[in-house]
């Protein structure tokens, strides 16, 4: 198990390194510098700016400098938020995004799996059809349509919840964004669980379990659930990726001060270092989650551990 984990870790680190390197050189290959969009600056001011951000040095030296400062957690200064470094913006935004994302993924799993199981057990009943119709709808409606629509219903017509905004520590502002973020993966997980549960329920050992008189509840929980969750486990990485990308729009719509909103604003303002930093953080997060999911997978299916 430990060996398996180390092997996975050994491929994750180079991947992250490739991402950072690639992103850095794409950024430097871009036509024009980061200060070109503003009104033309006097040449000596331009020179000072270039000097201050280290842009007058050869690219390989800039690269080494950037990589060097990354190793102690310094993502460099933001080009547009003049008083902040990218590291400070990440420190501010990351907890918000993490909270939003982790509640959303928990919600998707804790509601999606039971819904799928119930639909499978009550196969071809009205309950099954209702759940699956909801799931199809949930997959079809993107978060950036759902969230404003929820805001319209609960914020403007019913006046129960705020449409947008943020107050540290107040869950009222997180409720609608979390629901909008969780719904598409929730629907997909419910569908996946249902179809794999239906398949598992047809296998011989489940028939044996029923034959020896076990009640439905313990057949499902003790025998069927773990193998039925395999497809869900392999969907987890795409689900996390979907929630991360969803967090970009959801944070922008709801005005939550997370790293997703900084990434979008940085992208619109062409703030290169900010975007680079956020891309690195998101990639690291995604790769880290991938590692965790691999461990989970190895626990669910012992065969994975011995496979080379």
């Amino acid at each position: 198990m430990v060996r398996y984990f180390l092997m996975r870790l050994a491929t994750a680190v180079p991947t992250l390194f490739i991402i950072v390197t690639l992103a850095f050189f794409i950024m430097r290959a871009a036509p024009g510098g980061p200060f070109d969009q503003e009104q033309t600056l006097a040449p000596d001011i331009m020179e000072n700016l270039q000097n201050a951000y280290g842009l007058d040095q050869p690219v390989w030296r800039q690269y080494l400098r950037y990589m060097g400062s990354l190793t102690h957690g310094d993502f460099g200064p933001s080009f547009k938020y003049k008083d902040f470094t990218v590291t400070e913006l990440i420190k501010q935004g990351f907890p918000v995004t993490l909270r939003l994302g982790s509640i959303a993924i928990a919600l998707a799993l804790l509601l999606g799996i039971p819904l799928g199981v119930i639909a499978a057990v009550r196969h071809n009943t009205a309950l099954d059809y209702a759940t699956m119709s909801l799931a199809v709808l949930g997959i079809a409606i993107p978060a950036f349509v759902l969230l404003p629509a929820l805001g319209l219903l609960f914020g403007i017509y019913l006046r129960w919840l705020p449409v947008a905004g943020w107050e540290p520590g107040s869950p009222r502002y997180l409720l609608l964004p979390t629901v909008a973020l969780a719904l598409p993966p929730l629907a997909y997980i419910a569908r996946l669980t249902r179809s794999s549960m239906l398949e598992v329920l047809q296998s011989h050992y489940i028939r044996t379990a029923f034959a020896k008189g076990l009640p439905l509840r313990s057949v499902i929980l003790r025998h069927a659930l773990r193998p039925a969750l395999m497809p869900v486990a392999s969907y987890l990485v795409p689900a996390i990726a979907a929630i991360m990308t969803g967090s970009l729009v959801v944070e922008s719509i709801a005005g939550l001060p997370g790293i997703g909103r900084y990434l979008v604003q940085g992208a619109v303002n062409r703030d290169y270092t900010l975007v680079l930093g956020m891309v690195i953080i998101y990639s690291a997060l995604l790769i880290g989650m991938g590692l965790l999911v691999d461990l989970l997978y190895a626990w669910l299916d012992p065969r994975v551990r011995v496979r080379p």
Partner: protein
Amino acid sequence: MSAPMQDAAGRFRSNPAAFAAALIVACIVVLSIAGPWFSPNGHDTLDWLHVAMRPGLPQAHWFGTDRLGRDLFVRTLVGTRVSLTVGLVASAVSLLVGIAYGAVAGYFGGRIDHLMMRVIEIISGLPLIFFVIFITVIFGRNIYLLFLSIGAVAWLTMARIVRGQTMSIRREEYIEAAVACGASPARIILRHVLPNLVGVVVVYATLSVPQIILFESFLSFLGLGIQEPSVSLGTLVADGAGELEAAPWMLLIPGAFLALLMLCLNLCGDGLRDALDVKEG
């Protein structure tokens, strides 16, 4: 049409949800092409006398107008057309690249296959959506770059599926017979392997269109995809999300079009998968 295809068409027609979805998609396509022609308004002409008007009959603003008095009926249909075009073109690009790559890897196998699959593994390990955003930031926003970057993300799945299928077809006796007759690999792939891939390819192409439309509208929503004066469903939803209180129809109408399109395309894909009896890749 060959007999298996006829069977599949019969099975598709007897699936009410998929068949209805296909009809709705057809209606949306026809409407998005012909609809704007029936309206006296253009998609970016300003009507200052009817600003933020609710849906109704006056001045033929059937879906109402936005803050600048632009007609939402025409804008929604033109936006749908743009989103559909992006979806179709980008799927076609990813289809071509994916099929060529997957068929070559699957047919030759061995070391070539190993190397080609490692490349796919590495690329799919990268968080591509963030890369696409990054690249649009740096190289500016234009529609060709959008096609290219979406295609670059979408071909991976297709290549994997085609490779798997090709590997199993490779073991068939008729391939052996073709090799024995001295046919070149290119001829075998084009004449014997590809025609047997039609089912899988059709199913996954159908399922990739809504994914790409979603991706495009996501980028356009963030202001990184389609740019003014052109419109897509994503930019329309973004405009509407900013005018919730004053003009909710600006969100609800394009949002409903997008959701309906996604829903029906997904149902079509599922229906085709069942009809052609394709196993999940």
